[in-house]
């Protein structure tokens, strides 16, 4: 449980739920100790504290590995699996797959396919890539300029098997 950011009310409720067997005195004692001690030095040492919001750290794990993926799996449903073939100057050089990642860019990176990137949110256009075959679905509206045959891997996922051209 998130110690540092919880407020008094919610931790008190948690406490009541978990320790219904404790005596009345113990409860009162706990009430007092919940008041933050302004002179408690232990709070000042950031090394003692747990990271407050771990989810804000960028996922450095391989996002094509299901167990490392932060996505919630729907029960009884497999994530759609699509082949992604990569071409240089229209010669196919590599085929990878897309199944678990949040975006095509993450998926490609997890499989060691280098793609230029900057904003990862669809507004800078650094990852602009030519789509030779197949269809993609945008998870958010791309803002950067893209031509009709181009996609932004940072904000889309494949809808079908796709063939893309990386420069």
């Amino acid at each position, binding site marked *: 449980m998130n110690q540092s950011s919880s407020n008094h009310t919610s931790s008190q409720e948690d406490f009541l739920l978990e320790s219904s067997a404790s005596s009345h005195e113990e409860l009162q004692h706990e009430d007092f100790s919940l008041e933050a001690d302004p002179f408690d030095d232990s709070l000042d040492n*950031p090394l003692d*504290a747990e*990271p*407050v*919001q771990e989810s*804000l*750290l*960028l996922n450095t794990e391989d996002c094509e590995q299901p167990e490392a993926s932060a996505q919630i799996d729907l029960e009884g449903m497999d994530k759609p699996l699509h082949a992604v073939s990569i071409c240089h100057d229209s010669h196919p050089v590599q085929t990878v797959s897309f199944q678990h990642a949040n975006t095509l860019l993450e998926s490609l990176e997890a499989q060691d396919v*280098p793609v*230029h*990137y*900057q*904003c*990862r949110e669809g*507004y*800078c*256009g*650094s990852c*602009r890539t030519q789509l030779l075959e197949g269809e993609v679905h945008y998870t958010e*509206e791309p*803002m*950067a*300029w893209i*031509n009709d045959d181009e996609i932004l891997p940072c904000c889309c996922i494949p809808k079908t098997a796709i063939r893309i051209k990386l*420069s």
Partner: protein
Amino acid sequence: MSYTTFNQKTFDTLKQPMFFGETVNVARYDIQKHKIFENLIEKQLSFFWRPEEVDLANDRKDFNDLPDHEQHIFLSNLKYQTLLDSVQGRSPNVAFLPIVSLPELETWIETWSFSETIHSRSYTHIMRNVVPNPAEVFDDITRNDFITRRAVSVTKYYDELIEKCSFYTQLGEGTHTINGKVVDINLRDLKRTLYLTMVSVNVLEAIRFYVSFACSFAFAERAKMEGNAKIIKLIARDEALHLTGTQHILQIMAAGKDDPEMGEIAASCKEEVREIFLDAAEQEKEWAGYLFKDGSMIGLNQQILAQYVEYITDQRIVAIGLPPIFNAKSNPLPWINSWLNSDNVQVAPQEAEISSYLVGALDSAVDTDDFGDFDL
């Protein structure tokens, strides 16, 4: 056509081109010809930040520990960026607002220019924290030959457009004698000047800034001047959006659907556009020579920076639909991507502000009463 702050005519906004149509009257966004500008405005507003949110306490110590030639690199880059943002904080307003015809584009230009003024203020914030006398650094911007020479290439298109537009709005098309000088003003030539100005702005935001960015991040890679890098990251995030803005304007112009004459002009200017990109790349390489004149810094030298300029120039020119110039396909500074991605480099949140926390990252309301019990 003379400029009026509120055009009394009734006309269909959706039928106006981006520039040189009717001047804007009602600032309305319920109907939009190009929705992208509204999206850009919203994104830019969500990026709002203030320089004071970034703590630079450690940067002064870092700066004092840098050898002389690295101090030169750091300060020269800040001077150059100060120049670029001084230009960008006013020029889009002065040059484009008198001729813009769409409310959403008008507001985007204002929002864009405003965010550049934040960048300018952040340079003063950095200088105040890093050097004992910021005035010396700022005063040098207009005295230093290497900087002023670059100011010319940055501003000449803007200045030409502003001058021609002021004649056009006062006197209209035709041949005029102004202060004994004969000037020929015609709309097609004006549109051409506008297109080339927009290209030079794109070059400014898409190439020129990135040389300084690379140096700032190269310091930060060595854990030096990290507060500065944090500010540069926020600036780079804004600039990425601005360059998307100018790319959209250029592509809409080139497509010719918005204004067919503009489409013809764009098609006939390809060689000049290429020249503008090439000149900028050469100037930036020359600047890299000046930066590293007394020695390189760890992780970055003149040669690598020049390769990066070529790479970024190709990326940007391809983005506006022209063939690459240098055929530089690989990024010689791959580590720079993670710095340019404003949310990627994340230490524990309690140790540093997160750029996506928009406001309230710092309580700056310190009253003099708070120091009441201080004894010296």
